[in-house]
């Protein structure tokens, strides 16, 4: 009888749990729900294929992509990035000196949370900080050199699973929550949130472009977009998203962008790095 009672109370608690969880941030539960949402919505898409954005959504596009991948347009960026990586700064140091494992095969760990600073550090930010610490001027965050560097770093990390950590630091959890809020908040004259396009409508066409699923969208960065006729970084992608909703983009690497990249990368944990990517 006692046993039965306690079992009932455990069941009752379990039923109550989701309601209680509403107020308490739970990144692990978010991650699970996020991934399940996409898997359920797109039962035909192979799990690891979500990282290929619009190409995972449309057969005709997938074929064009396969043709492009035979000799992808980001090849030059990877090669330039490799060269930059091996070229020392004026002080003789290199990018390798700024990163764990000399910067090779570590893309999947970014963004990371810096507990000393209490902030999210993206790969792009870490690269410019590396430059500045070695007496070099920072690069433009949107394209060119920055995109080449991250293209090379992503290339050396291909197929490694995204592995973002949220340390038990209230500021890390706050950054994650802020990123999540940014992702779901409507903005711009079109009144779109990131989720309007990339959660509710992946695979559909907007302004003739096939929308990418939010799941794994960061795994493909940086990207060569035919629309840009060139490479663009995560910073560029986020700024473009904003301006397409007629919102004025924020400064590259502002807290909101860092946090939303943290959120989007974390919920894609376990999905492979596919960057650099090619996109329409």
């Amino acid at each position, binding site marked *: 009888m006692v046993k039965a009672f306690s079992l009932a109370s455990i069941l009752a608690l379990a039923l109550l749990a989701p309601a209680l969880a509403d107020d308490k941030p739970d990144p692990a*539960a*978010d991650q699970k*729900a*996020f991934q399940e*949402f996409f898997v359920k919505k797109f039962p035909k898409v192979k799990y690891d294929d979500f990282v290929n954005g619009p190409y995972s959504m449309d057969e005709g596009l997938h074929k064009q992509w396969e043709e492009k991948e035979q000799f992808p347009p980001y090849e030059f960026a990877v090669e330039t990035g490799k060269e930059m990586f091996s070229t020392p700064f004026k002080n003789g140091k290199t990018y390798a000196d700024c990163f764990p494992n000399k910067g090779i095969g570590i893309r999947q760990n970014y963004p990371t949370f810096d507990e000393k600073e209490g902030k999210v550090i993206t790969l792009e930010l870490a690269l410019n900080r590396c430059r500045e610490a070695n007496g070099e001027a920072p690069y433009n965050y949107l394209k060119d050199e920055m995109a080449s560097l991250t293209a090379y770093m992503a290339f050396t990390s291909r197929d490694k699973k995204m592995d973002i950590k949220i340390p038990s630091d209230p500021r890390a959890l706050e950054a994650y929550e802020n990123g*999540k*809020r940014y992702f*779901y*908040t*409507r*903005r*711009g*004259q*079109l*009144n*779109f*949130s990131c*989720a*309007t396009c990339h*959660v509710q409508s992946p695979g559909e066409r907007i302004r003739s472009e096939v929308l990418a699923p939010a799941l794994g969208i960061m795994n493909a960065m940086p990207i060569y977009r035919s629309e840009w006729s060139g490479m663009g970084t995560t910073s560029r992608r986020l700024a473009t998203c904003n*301006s397409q909703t*007629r*919102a*004025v983009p*924020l400064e590259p690497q502002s807290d*909101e962008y860092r946090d939303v990249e943290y959120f989007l990368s974390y919920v894609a944990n376990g999905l492979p790095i596919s960057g650099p990517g090619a996109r329409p």
Partner: protein
Amino acid sequence: MSARNIVLATVLVMTGTLPARAASEADFKAAYAAAEAAEKQADQLRNKWITTETELATAKKAAAAGDFDAAIAAAREAEALANASIYQATSEKTRWKDMEIR
């Protein structure tokens, strides 16, 4: 508030305030200051709209060319857009949760 509602609100604000006489520079300055103040508030909410910025620029350009009627019309549109963006940012403070995957 849907995108359409915001646009509609914008149109209503605009049509109600068309000046009847030729406007003066002082009228423009007042209209522009009001628009700028609203946009500043939108900026503090981290939610400026490109369209607001475009109207502000249009207003300035028209004023510089001495066309104060056009300048005031653009400034008022900018103010309406800025107010809509403020409304959006404020209401989204809680409403974003509706969209969340959970």
